[in-house]
């Protein structure tokens, strides 16, 4: 039952010198000495990635390895994990550490030895800061995979080199493909257990390539690793001279983020969250001289979901369709000449347009057509099945509208990748549905526009998130 059975690390073999760091529980407080290398103080870019794997493929060890080798695990955390590992007789060797204890944050998880929920972990290399969404492999796997991958710039899928590509690998990659995660990395783990055998790796890599081809995943990176021994995780390994690619961390530092890839390709979209009108309620830091100018200030606050906006740009406003010009862009009191996704800004417009929460400011000429009906792939997350006729709420951007499920057109079989007819969607199902909306939405196909193509399906009474959806072009 334990996801991390076998995920253990003997401190001797990997240099987890828990004992050496005696600074914990002394009265020295912050020990700024050179006992450990300093984490970088520079701020790099931000990269989000998710890890997914099947039972016992060593995911917890890999996550622990990444965190440990990037100095993200500090002495007191390591000491706490070591103490708990020892109390439970983990591994049997003195100093053996159960890395899963680092990510299994809840009592129920530790007691059962399973990971229930996505855990978020953080580390930085100086070039980049990473947000790692660690997705449990077996309980609620689709729910967790979708949650962890929805905003991920990359997904790392683990495969045990001895088992090769499993059914679950196929499912993980299918979800990755549907969500259009920009980068897929398949870490072929436990390469040490097959004696760093190139043929074993090549066989798995060939299966991965074939599967990626089936799924239409453009470029899957395949890396031979040993999370336990550290091969090709942070440093390139001398044990795999036949592999000339980057280590996992090198690759994660190199890959482009969604915003780096897409900001320049997509037109401006800024869903209006609220309108800032400070008449009389000016922030006390505004000077009297500035206060006069700000008397009639009206700014449209929101996050730029895609594209770039410059002062002077012509824009159009959904749903009214009015055309106007951007006269100001602010981030707090700071005026900007231009801003790009994903910044949160406030835009000032030349004309007094009717735009409140729910409106979308778009580059002129790119205004999406209003939709009263959505065709969508939905990921069913709630335990209650979703059936035709269900009355729900759809939350899209900054708008929530009533909707009715008018048709469930089929369920995606992740093994055959074919759509089969079904009357309702059960938890973890992925299905193609049609929704009728009570009001217009500025929804666009997810394939063309990631953030304008995503929505939540919400229970109108208890407010539960029933499903996550991505808009697709209407099937023929």
């Amino acid at each position: 039952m334990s996801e991390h059975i076998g995920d253990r690390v003997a401190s001797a073999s990997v240099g987890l010198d828990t004992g050496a760091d005696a600074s914990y529980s002394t009265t020295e407080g912050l020990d700024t000495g050179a006992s450990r290398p300093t984490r970088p103080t520079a701020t790099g870019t931000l990269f989000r990635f998710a890890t997914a794997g099947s039972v016992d493929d060593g995911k917890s060890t890999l996550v622990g390895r990444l965190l440990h080798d990037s100095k993200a695990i500090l002495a007191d955390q390591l000491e706490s994990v070591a103490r708990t590992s020892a109390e439970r007789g983990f591994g049997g060797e003195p100093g053996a550490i159960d890395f899963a204890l680092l990510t299994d944050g809840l009592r129920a998880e530790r007691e059962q030895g399973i990971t229930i929920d996505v855990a978020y972990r953080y580390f930085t290399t100086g070039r980049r800061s990473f947000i790692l969404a660690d997705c449990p492999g077996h309980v609620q796997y689709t729910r967790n995979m979708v949650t962890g991958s929805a905003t991920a710039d990359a997904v790392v899928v683990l495969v045990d080199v001895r088992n090769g590509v499993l059914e679950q690998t196929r499912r993980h990659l299918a979800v990755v493909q549907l969500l259009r995660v920009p980068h897929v990395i398949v870490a072929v783990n436990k390469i040490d257990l097959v004696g760093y055998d190139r043929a074993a790796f090549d066989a798995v890599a060939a299966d991965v390539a074939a599967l990626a081809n089936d799924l239409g995943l453009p470029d899957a990176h395949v890396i031979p690793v040993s999370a336990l021994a550290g091969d090709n995780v942070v440093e390139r390994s001398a044990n795999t001279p036949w592999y000339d690619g980057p280590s996992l961390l090198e690759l994660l530092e190199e890959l482009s983020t969604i915003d780096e890839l897409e900001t320049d390709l997509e037109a401006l979209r800024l869903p209006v969250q609220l309108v800032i009108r400070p008449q009389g309620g000016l922030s006390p830091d505004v000077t009297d001289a500035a206060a006069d100018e700000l008397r009639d200030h009206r700014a449209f606050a929101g996050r730029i979901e895609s594209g770039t906006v410059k002062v002077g740009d012509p824009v159009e406003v959904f749903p009214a369709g009015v055309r106007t010009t951007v006269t100001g862009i602010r981030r707090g009191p700071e005026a900007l000449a231009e801003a790009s996704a994903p910044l949160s800004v406030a835009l000032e417009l030349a004309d007094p347009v009717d735009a409140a929460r729910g409106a979308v400011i778009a580059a002129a000429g790119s205004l999406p057509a209003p939709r009263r009906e959505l065709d969508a792939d939905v990921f069913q997350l709630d335990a209650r099945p979703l059936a035709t006729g269900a009355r729900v709420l759809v939350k899209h951007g900054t708008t929530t509208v009533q909707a009715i499920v008018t048709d469930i057109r089929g369920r995606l079989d992740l093994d055959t990748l074919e759509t089969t007819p079904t009357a309702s969607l059960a938890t973890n199902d992925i299905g193609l549905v049609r929704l009728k909306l009570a009001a217009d939405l500025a929804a666009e196909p997810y394939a063309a526009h990631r953030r304008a193509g995503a929505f939540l399906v919400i229970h109108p009474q208890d407010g539960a998130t029933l499903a996550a959806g991505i808009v697709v072009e209407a099937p023929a």
Partner: protein
Amino acid sequence: MSESIIPGGRVASAGEAIPGGRVASAGEAIPGGRVAPEARIETARVQGLDTGAGASYSTTENLDTGAGASYSTTEGLDTGAGASYSTTEGLDTGADASYSTTATLDALDVLEAEAIHVIREVVAEFERPVLLFSGGKDSVVVLHLAAKAFWPAKVPFPVLHVDTGHNFPEVLRFRDETVARLGIRLEVASVQDYLDDGRLQERADGTRNPLQTQPLLDAIAAGRHDAVFGGARRDEDKARAKERIISLRDEFGQWDPRNQRPELWSLYNGRHTVGQHVRAFPISNWTELDVWRYIEREGIALPPLYFAHERDVYARDGMWLAVSDVSAPRAGETVERRTVRYRTVGDLSCTGAVVSEAATLSDIVREVAASTLTERGATRADDRLSEAAMEDRKKDGYF
């Protein structure tokens, strides 16, 4: 607040059921083509006027008061060549082709954008938000982000301090100065009041952190707050690593970690029923180091005890505790005068100082980066009680 006029002359507020079975959400499009106006910001004026004291206070830190039309330096956007507009040339607008459109935003820019987005979502969708404000660095950062999110309007919600009675005097002073400067209302939930009238009993170990839960929940109910902002971060604790950005609490304030709503993209589902409220954590994805880098970058004012200073301290449980009205050495513990600073601000009786010479923000950033201990491991006795100390407190309604 957040009212929308429904054809037929009624006024519906967010979440209210409308005859005919509809539910109006803030800003929801109403059949007939109108969009419910989002008037929440206006509440800022009302709340702001409560505390006239703040009006004259307009100094130094936080938001650069240059206000008007001049561009200030945009440190954050400094990566792409030429992308940052770092002069004071005024409004010679952006048609200028020399601006790159491929500016690379750094991690702090992205984290700030995410936090401001969350803060605005909560203000737009909830009736009566409040920010838990201790004067500690994390809640100070959230308040700074809120000020940026609504500038030039005031922060449109009050702050709530759960006062353990075990306060650092300089933190209370900072708290009062900050709310006065921003012109916002301060609510206080006092643990001492509960002890005085017997609703709570002092614990044997003297720590009052676990005692904060009841006054907090009562204050949330009394203020009819449907959303409560907090400065908690996922990197602080294993239980917090599983927390959502918008997290539902039941009528007892309880957190049910095994039954949380999945949180996808940046679509936050804050639907709740009567009696429930949400906790909102805009800086969930920040690390301690991010917080310090951001404070340095933005020049945010903090209580002085975060910086190296001399203090009478004694060693206990691997921490340096301050000599004060509520914490004194036991037999065998000796008082020393040392140069220390605090990494976290909490109950004075159980929050430890660290020996440090870091007197400036850049010193602190370097020190935190080099630290071998987490901030809670280094300074919080109560989190050492057990592996699940934080999880247990959170389940009971703690922040």
